[in-house]
């Protein structure tokens, strides 16, 4: 039963990883930007959340209603300024600029907020509580909620991209920038919107991570960015549901690894990534090989 429990926990943490990864996937799919500051922006969102909660004493979940729009605006602004001007130059420049941004954010947090780790909503029933199935299987409320939110976010993105008229615009711009521009779409604005959505989801990821574990300045690159990328590559580049599957595979591998030996949690996750890279480099879901 311990194994069943490990697998269930793994599937549920997969939801968290998918939440980290879907914004990354969206930005790559629409503007071909690989944002190396993705994880650090999630940590920033978490810190903003901590700040709002300690200052205003509003309930934890209400703070999400402030943080997510704030990060969306940050995403729009970042895309229209820094990332767009890097994009105008070359793909390499976007990598360098986002790497530099990641370094600035990480060390900025370290400088102003110290290396101390912070949690969100410690002590709440939502964070600590769980209900038991049988004697061995525990379902934490928080992980169930995060998984549900991840599925809801992915459904929402799916609906937005495939059904709404603005989503059609986003897909048009992603397919052919210049043709979309000729038809009257301002591709820079559309890119901005996509970045806003991406950062909105990553804000949710950062807040969820703050509740599930603790946030510190290095968590952005060491944990969030790395897991997000691994989930995206396992699932298949540019596929939203592949991202969820990738997150689940990563989560289950980690939990099974931890079950074998507690220090093997990370190693098991990376090994499954390498196995997928060898056997199915295009990812589990995507049909297009390489990009």
């Amino acid at each position: 039963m311990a194994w069943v429990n490990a697998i269930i926990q793994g599937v549920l943490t997969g939801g968290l990883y998918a939440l980290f990864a879907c914004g990354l996937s969206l930005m790559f799919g629409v503007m071909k930007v690989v944002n190396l500051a993705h994880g650090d922006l999630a940590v920033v969102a978490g810190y903003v959340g901590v700040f709002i909660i300690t200052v205003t004493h509003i309930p934890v979940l209400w703070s999400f209603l402030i943080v997510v729009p704030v990060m969306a605006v940050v995403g729009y602004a970042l895309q229209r300024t820094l990332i767009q001007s890097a994009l105008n130059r070359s793909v390499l420049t976007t990598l360098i600029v986002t790497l530099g941004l990641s370094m600035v954010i990480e060390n900025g947090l370290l400088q102003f907020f110290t290396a101390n780790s912070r949690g969100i909503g410690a002590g709440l029933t939502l964070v600590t509580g769980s209900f038991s199935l049988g004697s061995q299987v525990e379902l934490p409320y928080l992980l169930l909620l995060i998984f549900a939110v991840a599925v809801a976010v992915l459904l929402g993105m799916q609906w937005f991209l495939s059904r709404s008229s603005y989503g059609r615009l986003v897909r048009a711009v992603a397919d052919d920038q210049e043709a979309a521009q000729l038809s009257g779409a301002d591709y820079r604005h559309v890119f901005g919107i996509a970045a806003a959505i991406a950062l909105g989801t990553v804000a949710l990821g950062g807040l969820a991570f703050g509740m599930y574990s603790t946030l510190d300045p290095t968590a952005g690159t060491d944990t969030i960015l790395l897991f997000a990328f691994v989930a995206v590559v396992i699932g298949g580049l540019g596929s939203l549901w592949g991202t969820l599957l990738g997150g689940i595979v990563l989560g289950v591998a980690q939990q099974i690894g931890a079950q074998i030996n507690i220090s093997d949690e990370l190693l098991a996750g990376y090994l499954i990534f390498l196995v997928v890279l060898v056997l199915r480099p295009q990812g589990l879901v995507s049909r297009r090989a390489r990009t």
Partner: protein
Amino acid sequence: MSVVAQADTVAADAFQVTRSRQNVIWTGVAALAVVVLLALFPYLVYSGTTSLMVQGFIVLTLASMWNLLAGYAGLVSVGQQGFLGLGAYFVLIFALHGLSPFVALPLAAIGCGVAALPLWWLVSRLRSGYFAIATWVLAATLMLFIERFNSLGGGTGLPLPGFTGMSPRLLTADTYWAGLAVTVAALLTVYVLLRSRVGLVLTAIRDDEVAARSSGARVGLARLLVFVVAGIGCGAAGAVLAISQLQVQPSADFSISWTAEMAFAVIIGGLGTIEGPIIGTVVYMVLQQTLQNFNAWYLIILGLVAIVVALFARRGLWGLVDSRLNIRLFPVGYWLRSAWTGGAPVGGAPLGGAPVGAGPVDSGPVGSGTNPV
């Protein structure tokens, strides 16, 4: 090959194709003089200075390798610290078996080159940012894997054996010479590689990958070669690191901050030139020494500088020098001289900066037609 023949005839009639404007011998003599002077440093300066310079040698070696990867082969690796750590651990393994760490250094470098082959097979399936992250995951996996061996010190590392009986002064000097030798070898390798046919392919990839592929350049093979060379170079740097620190420690040797250092030295100095990493390393070391008391500020400033340089001075500091004076310390391109243009670099100017025929299609025939020393 009629194009080549044509280019040859044209070159013979109206153009003169040379490697550089000045005599290369003088640059070579100057470089040799600098190396000899540097080699005498342990006799001339305090050991504090030489150990600082060993740090500089490590960064310069890493930066030259990263430049080869990102600046020429278009491979942005965020996982070169994996080879650095591997090099350090190879030295430890050999030293534990009774070998002198200085003898172990070249063996460790070769070991890293061998290890690069299967690792390339894994990561070459991905491109751009995904390649970057795959290399990073590899480095993290290597670290976690090595930490499992308790005989290698597990998660805390081990002091490096094999120095017993050496006087501290001799040890410092030997470490310095080892660092200098590795750096000179690295720069020389990069220079020779870029002057070879592979260098022509690499320059073509740097300028325009699609055009390089369509002209039949063997892009994949050139990339594999660069990845292996970079593995050897970073491994040697890791070996020097282990010797200079007198210990190996997984979290320090496999730290991602090494990649940040090498990348920023290259970007600030100038991506896609041999001179860039040298200037970048000097700037980096100066910044590090002046700002090291300000903790995180130093990395914040470094990050900001890199962003500004990447956006507004894409060819880095060396690019600024080069665009005004048009000099090459390490001529790897070709100069095409004719009666009416005076002289313009072909295929040698970074990032499409050459006024005449910087594209691979032009430099290909010229390069294969003439093979100066």
